[in-house]
Structures are given as C-alpha cells and as structure tokens.
C-alpha cells in the first residue's frame, strides 16, 4: 500500500505546504513518514515516493543517502546518538560514550543483541552547554536527553524495554 493510500490526510497536508511547481519539496517530509512506518527507508518506499512526486528513484536515493537522519537499513529500533563534537568533548562526552558502550557490551555504531538500541557518535546537536547529551531517535520522534550519565541512560533503556513489552 502506498503512503498516499495509507496516510491520505497527512500526505495531502504536506503537499499543500508547497506550490504545485515546487512539489518536490515534499520529498524530505515524505521520507520521514516512510521511515516512521518501517523503521528505515526501503527500496519500495523510495519507488512509491518517486512516483508520487514525478521524480526518479535515483533522485530520491540521492537525497536519502545525503542526510544522516535517514536510514537505509534496519538497525536498533531506537538510536542513541551521542554528540562527541568539540564542545561536548571538552565536557566529557567521549568518556560517557565509551562507558555507555562498555555497559551495553557493544562498540560505537553497533546494536544491542535484542535489537532495541544502536549507539552512534554524531555531530553537534546544539546542546553544547548540557553535555554529555544525546538524541534518542525513535520510530516517530526525536528526543533530546541532556546532562546525561550512564546510570540515567541505562534507566531510560530499561523504560524503553518495558514499553516494548
């Protein structure tokens, strides 16, 4: 089922933001919907969106590959994306990231065995005064978690586990 059939209202609302000759502007918002739906952006979703916007699949794939918040592979259901850029690194972000990975028994970029959480280093998230911090990218939201410790993060992961049953 295509996105337009599955979420007619939402797709229509996105398209209405842009002039008819600027229809392609809807590409990025539509990709977010596709990702929310499947946890990643599948080939089929790219074909679907390309057809909807009268552009080629290659053009869609080019956009997906360019931006870091789009994922072409299914990994952890939640992504813990730790900022380790300079200002955060000056306030202990690298140590935090290392300790967290040790605790989860994974390396940076890897996913926990149960498939729940992937831990990744990312670039600046505009929260330099509240390091260590990460964003939690889930299926339908991105949340900031600031002034973090490994203990607080493990609690959060515990809550995610529970909510997943």
């Amino acid at each position, binding site marked *: 089922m295509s996105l337009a059939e599955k979420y007619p209202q939402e797709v229509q609302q996105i398209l209405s933001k842009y002039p008819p000759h600027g229809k392609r502007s809807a590409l*990025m918002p539509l990709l977010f919907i596709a990702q929310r739906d499947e946890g990643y952006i599948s080939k089929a979703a790219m074909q679907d969106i390309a057809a909807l916007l009268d552009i080629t699949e290659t053009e869609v794939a080019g956009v997906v590959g360019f*931006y870091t918040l789009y994922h072409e592979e299914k990994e952890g259901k939640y992504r813990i994306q730790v900022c380790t850029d*300079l200002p955060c690194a000056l306030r202990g972000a690298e140590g935090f990231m290392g300790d967290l990975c040790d605790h989860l028994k994974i390396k940076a970029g890897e996913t926990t065995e149960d498939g729940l959480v992937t831990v990744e280093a990312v*670039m*600046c998230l*505009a929260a330099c005064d509240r390091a260590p911090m990460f964003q939690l990218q889930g299926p339908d939201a*991105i949340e900031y978690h600031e002034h973090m410790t490994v203990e607080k993060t493990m609690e959060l992961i515990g809550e995610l586990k529970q909510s997943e049953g």
Partner: protein
Amino acid sequence: MTHVLLRHREIPDIGKLSVYQDNGGLAAFKNAVTKMKPGEVIDVVKNSGLRGRGGAGFPTGMKWSFADAKSWPHYMVANADESEPGTFKDREVMENNPFQFLEGVMIGSYAVGANIAYIYLRGEFWQIAESLDRKIAEMEAEGYLGDKIFGTDYSLRIYTHLGAGAYICGEETALLESLEGRRGQPRVRPPFPPSEGLYGKPTIINNVETFTNVPMIMANGAEWYKSMGTADAPGVKIFSLSGRVRKPGNYELPFGTTFRDLIYKYGGGVQDSRSVRAIMPAGASSSLILVDDDSILDTPMDYLEVRKLKSELGSASVIIVDDTVSMDWLINKTVHFFRHESCGKCTPCREGTFWMSHLTERIHTGQAVRADVDLLLNVAKQMQGKCLCALGEFSTMAVVSSLERFREDFDKAVQA
C-alpha cells in the same frame, strides 16, 4: 539588564500567545501591516543597524531592500538549521520565546512583500517544529496569519520544514536546495537569493536570532536599539558560551562586552580554576585566539575588534579552551567534523577535508613525522580561497591558526 531576546527569563510564560500579547506582543506586526508601507519598515530596520546573527553580520535592512521588485512572488525563509559546533542560541529562543521569533518573520515577510514564509529547521529540532506548528495555528485562528490580515490586502502563511541532518544546509543556497527536495549542496552565486532564490524567485533568508530582534526594534525604535552595543555592531547578541567554563549557557549581552566579563562574570570562570589558553569565538569555524597575554581578555566583542585578534566573531559561539587541551587533539576534532559535513560538490573542500583529516589523525595518534605537519599546513592553505562556499574555508581556520599560534603542540606530538 532586562532581556531583549531571551525575555522568557523575566516572563516565564511568554511562550503562550495570551502572555505574549499581554506583554505587547504582535502590536508591532499589526502596526506595520495597518499603518506602515513595507519600505518604511525596511527603513526602521536599516536605521537600527541590525546585522545578521547567523555569522556573516550582513546588515539586515539592506538585505531586505535587495528583494527584486521586478520578479514575483517573493519568499521569506528563516534559517533555523543551527548546527555550528558551539551554537545553541536559536534553539533556546524557539523553545521559550517562539512568538517573538515568529512575529519577526511576519514583520519581515510584510516588509519584503512575501505571502509565504518557510522556517527551515534542522531535522533534530523535530520537537521544536511540532511546537511552532501549534503556535502558527493559534495565530491563524486569531487572524494574525491567513488571508487579508486585519482587513488589509496582505496575506501570509508560515510553514515549517525539517531538514534531516546536514550542517551544510545552514549555508543559504544549500538550504534552498534542501527546501526544494534536493541534496543540500550550495549553488554557484551570483545570482544571490534576493534575486533568484527559492523556486527561482526572490528570497530573503535570515537567522532566527536576527528575526527575534525585529519586533522589539519596531516597538521601541531604531534609536533605542542603537543605544545598546557598539557603533560597529549595535544592539544585543546572544553569546553561546561552551567548553571549559563553570557555567556554560546562553548570555544575552550588548555587543562590546569583553571576553573577560563573559567568561568570569557570567560564565563563572574556567573549570578547575585553570587558565584560558585559547578562545574560539565563532564555534568550530574559528581561527583560534591565542591568549598568551591576559589583556587579550579585555577585548570587546564586536565584529571589528575580534577581527583585530585575527579571528572572527561569527555567530558568537564562544568555545573556551583551557591549558589542559592540546591543539593537535582539538583540530583533529574540528577537521573530522568538516570532513563529515563537506557536501562533496566542490573538489577543494571534498578532497581537502579528507586529506586534512588523515593528517590530523596521524599527528594526534603519534604516527606522524615532522613533514606531515608542514603538509597539513600546505593542504589547508591550498584550500583557502578556492571553495564554493564558506564551509571549506571554515575547515581551515582552526588548522592554520593553531599551526601558526600553537606550533609547540604539534612539535611535541611529532616527537612523541
């Protein structure tokens, strides 16, 4: 001092429409639309001396006057792609004083004759976009947005648009490409956006903080605004203070405040009472200011004075580096950032950031020989002046300045 931009610090509920209105909110927009010609609005902003807060410091009123009157429609775009390492001011404004920002967008749109405004937010600001959407809907319900506003012929709609993680989209033509549903790669300029921007039409793009100044300028007048700050940079600025200070955070202060006051009076001093070794006043894009003489801290922060220290004020994202930090580690961080964020369109930046990152990694991990340090400087200097946009140039700033001003760190790294 009462805040001009971070007003939520005095009025905690200013993020509610009724509270914003009770504190004079939206009166400036109503006054502009019902009683002023667009050109008169532009004149007030011109006279205030307001300069763009995204980093370049271009005079805002002048930029607005560039919107090509022979080509229509016009678009207004708010750049909310805040991504420079060390910058977190726009986020605080949008989270806490959103209506003042939105009113600035509305006044600006009226001034340049735009009936549609887009707010381009970095994808990570997902929650902020949701919240702005609700605020926009509230204003539409109260007749501040929509068709024939206040019974005039003026119509305006504002839409949010999320990016998806790409620093380069803060560059205005890359932002437009992204907004058009393409990869965020800068355009060749000229033409500049005020003549050919979004969908090929005249487009004015300003930073969030810039817009947030506008309602207060319209309400209190250009002379009031100019009574703050310096001749070079009138008004107030939000300084994002980060790095090794006790109290990192945003501090709204008049231009011309000294580094010393920012770091010690407001920022609580350096962590562990160490001393300041270097300052990066414009985030990761800075040339490092060498603080080898205590009097450097008495430099007033405006565009002109910081330039005298062979650096730039940029977006005033002031990163404090203390004497525990080695510069070979620091530039390895900044170069990896730019290598990751280089869009790949132009060769000097794509290749240059790649090769610089190899060299800084090698130096930092003790694998390098002396010739690698010279080669790094050579690569950085070859990039300068040759890149399509400022990102490539910015990637060389910390490299060249630290090699010139902190050479001993590199000599040590090579010997070790």
